[in-house]
């Protein structure tokens, strides 16, 4: 268990800023996820912590002590890879024992700890198997056991579930979460799957183009996205760029008249709202109302997904719950959509930053 302090880490490759002044704290025992599209720098950051990449500037501290100059093999960090990285010429037990052998632990202790951790990942009966006899999910469990058995200060996982099929992915992610909680290992987890990140993490750091866009718990990330990028990357989001504003903060969309004091003095804002917050109804207080025609209608069981082409050119996605009760609208039907003010997000068109609109 350890607290990880990443201070102003930067790393450039020719022509690319892989990490741009990354400043983060991972609390002791926390499940911390680096989330972003491929190429955002999340894996580079993880490998920097592991000691496989040298950064250009900044410091890494574990429990207050700098580890930048400690070579990777002395950092006592467990690592789990997307491609498992199981040693193919060793049995399951030898794979798991490897780190303990490297640490020169006595044989009896190794045998006992290996057996215990294999039970923990439900591979108790597989100690003598060779890796090629195991399924992908089992191999990843071996990798997990191998990383955990050394009692690492930090556990790093680089997209450990990406190579598994969907059902196994869900199953194993629950297991990883439960294990991490019961052992209390500080864990940094890399993924590009936003749903996985929301489900598994204590806190999430959303990265894009080498920069940290937002750090927060899953609900904060989802309900109060810090930048336009976070808003568009996490979940589905309607984005209306460059909405003109009146001098007193009147939103120039729909009939107008909806006024937000916090936006007074801004010429334009980017407006965003999640499809599940859009309602298919004509009126209602505290909402921007747009009229339009159904452009596309998809029935998805629990909800209906509509795309509405609004008069004036804006297209709005709306999710309506229980279409079996509400009834489906057909393509071409004239409808009104209501965008409740309390559900709107506003962003600065210049820097993409969030503008807090109210309490």
């Amino acid at each position, binding site marked *: 268990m350890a607290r990880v302090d990443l201070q102003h880490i930067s790393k450039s490759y020719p022509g690319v800023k892989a990490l741009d002044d990354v400043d983060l704290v991972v609390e002791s025992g926390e499940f911390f996820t680096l989330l972003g599209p491929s190429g955002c720098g999340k894996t580079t950051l993880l490998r920097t912590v*592991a*000691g*496989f990449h*040298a*950064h*250009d500037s900044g410091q890494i501290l574990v429990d207050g002590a700098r580890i*930048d*100059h400690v*070579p*990777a*093999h*002395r*950092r*006592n*960090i*467990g*690592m789990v*890879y*997307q*491609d498992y*990285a*199981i*040693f*193919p*010429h060793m049995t399951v037990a030898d794979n798991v024992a*490897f*780190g303990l052998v*490297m*640490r020169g632990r006595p044989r009896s202790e190794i045998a006992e700890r290996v057996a215990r951790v294999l039970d923990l990942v439900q591979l108790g009966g597989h100690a003598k198997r060779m890796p090629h006899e195991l399924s992908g999910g089992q191999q990843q469990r071996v*990798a997990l056991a*191998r*990383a955990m058995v*050394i009692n690492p200060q930090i556990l*790093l996982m680089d997209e450990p579930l990406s190579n598994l099929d969907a059902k196994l992915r869900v199953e194993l992610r629950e297991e990883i979460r439960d294990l991490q909680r019961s052992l209390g290992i500080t864990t940094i987890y890399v993924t590009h799957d936003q749903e996985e990140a929301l489900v598994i993490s204590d806190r999430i750091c959303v990265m894009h183009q080498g920069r940290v866009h937002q750090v927060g718990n899953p609900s904060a990330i989802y309900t109060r996205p810090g930048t336009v990028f976070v808003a568009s990357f996490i979940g589905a989001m309607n984005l209306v760029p460059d909405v003109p504003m009146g001098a007193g903060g009147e939103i120039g969309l729909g009939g107008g008249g909806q006024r937000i004091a916090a936006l007074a003095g801004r010429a334009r804002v980017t407006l965003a709202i999640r499809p599940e917050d859009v309602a298919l109804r004509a009126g209602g207080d505290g909402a921007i109302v747009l009229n339009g025609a159904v452009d596309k209608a998809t029935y998805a069981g629990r909800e209906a997904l509509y795309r509405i082409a609004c008069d004036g050119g804006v297209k709005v996605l709306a999710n309506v719950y229980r279409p079996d009760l509400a009834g489906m609208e057909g393509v071409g039907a004239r409808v009104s959509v209501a965008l409740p003010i309390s559900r709107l997000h506003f962003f600065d068109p210049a820097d993409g930053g969030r503008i807090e609109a109210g309490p």
Partner: protein
Amino acid sequence: MTARLRLDFWTGVLLFAFAVVAALLAWPLSTILAASFVDNRTGAATLGNYARVLFQPFFQTALVNSMIVGFGGMLGAMALGVPLAVLTTRYVIRGRDFLATLAVLALVSPPFIGAYAWIMMLGRNGFVRLALEDFGVPVPPIYGLFGILLVFSLKFYPFVFLLTASSLRTINPAIEEAAEGLGAGAWRRFWKVTLPLVFPAVSAGALLTFVLSIADFGTPAIVGGRLRVLATTAYNLFTSEMTGNPGLASATSMVLIVMSMIVVALQRWAVGRRNVAGTLVRKPVPKRLGFAASVAAHLVCYGVVLASCLPSLVVIYTSFRKTSGPVFQPGFGLDSYERILREIPHVIGNSAVYSLTSVALIVVAGTLIGYILARRESPLAGALDGALLVPYIVPGVVLGLAFVVTFNVKPLELTGTATIIVLMLFIRRLPYAVRSSAAILKQIRGSIEEAAVSLGAAPGRAFLKITLPLMVPGVVAGALMSFITAINELSSSLILYVGRTMTMPVRIYLSVLDGEFGTAAALSTILLVASGLAVYAVFWVSGRNENAFV
């Protein structure tokens, strides 16, 4: 982690590799490059040597002959290799693995064995030729261009065959089916779709054949008659006591190198613009042919492969004939073997010691350098990769000359020693081992070694405990290949040897020139057996992969 150049183990290996390249390639080659600009009599700087090589009729003939031999050997090998590859991969041919094994055996047998076996069959006193003449069929002796091209085609076609066949096997049949669905008939499909897809493999095989053909010394020397090529001309210019001319020999060598470089560059340019890596969803299934077509296909396949094995069979047969001195007697016996064991046992010992020593060095250096090329991407590693291409295109005769010129002054006076022969074998074959170890490393994911490091193994230890055991099959296959080529090396050894350091190929060459066919056959048979055993071992470690040989 701000220090960029850490002086760790692998940096040491990189420095060592550059030292090797500098000492055994850059220095000797720059020495003959310099020598090529020196006038033999006055010692003044001159372009005269190049002027003579390029414009004097005597050398022009050799230059043109080298080109004819290079392109002729290449076309001959393609004419045999491509149809064989198509037939064995696309249609049901019985004994396909047997054919491939025989092709590999033909490939690893020393080329000069082919040359002199054909002389025993079709030379002035060739038994096939004399027998045919008894029947009233006059056959001219094969000395000259025809003989050289015959030997090269039958010797080098396995390169084209094996490379093309493996490429054909990785073409997704859906691509050919799609072409058929779009209306391309069998013939157009082959020319428009299949052939372009295997072009990189065919051209790589053809390139190899060209480079080996113009570099080959033994074949034109034995079967060429009065036909001179650049390789034999350079050798004669250098070794002849009367007319020896190192400057001219060096200029001839440089021309030979430049010819190889041009062809390598052309092939790279032609292949570079086509990236035909496909995804293999399902493997092509060989089709059944009708009876007549099938018989014809089998005749072609077995005809080519058996013809290429004929020289080896003739050699083995000859080695067991009864002899009295150099003269064959009726009947069979072990006379030839007794004779070599009695007269020249040290030659066999030399060959074994030199090739095993150089292979041991090659394995260690090749594995470590291969690791750098595969895992440490840096401009220096790239430069090293480029430098290690050089031995592919420098003919043995040329590098042999360069070694003699360079290492004959103190403190590095190595001429006449075993060391110089071992160093030569080492640098000539090192690139092959580097390639094979880099290739297998690329199949071992880097994350495996990283995982070991993060579990507490220092980088050197992680390599030893994790990566090295996984590399073993590739390294062993590479070592056996190096052994086969090292023990069969003729051209450079012929320049570097003295009586004490004579090797089997050199002795075979000299015996053939002296007409001592029994001794030559017995020594050749020993080489063939050693090479055959090594082939068997490669199959054993690499799981029957013929492409370990090309």
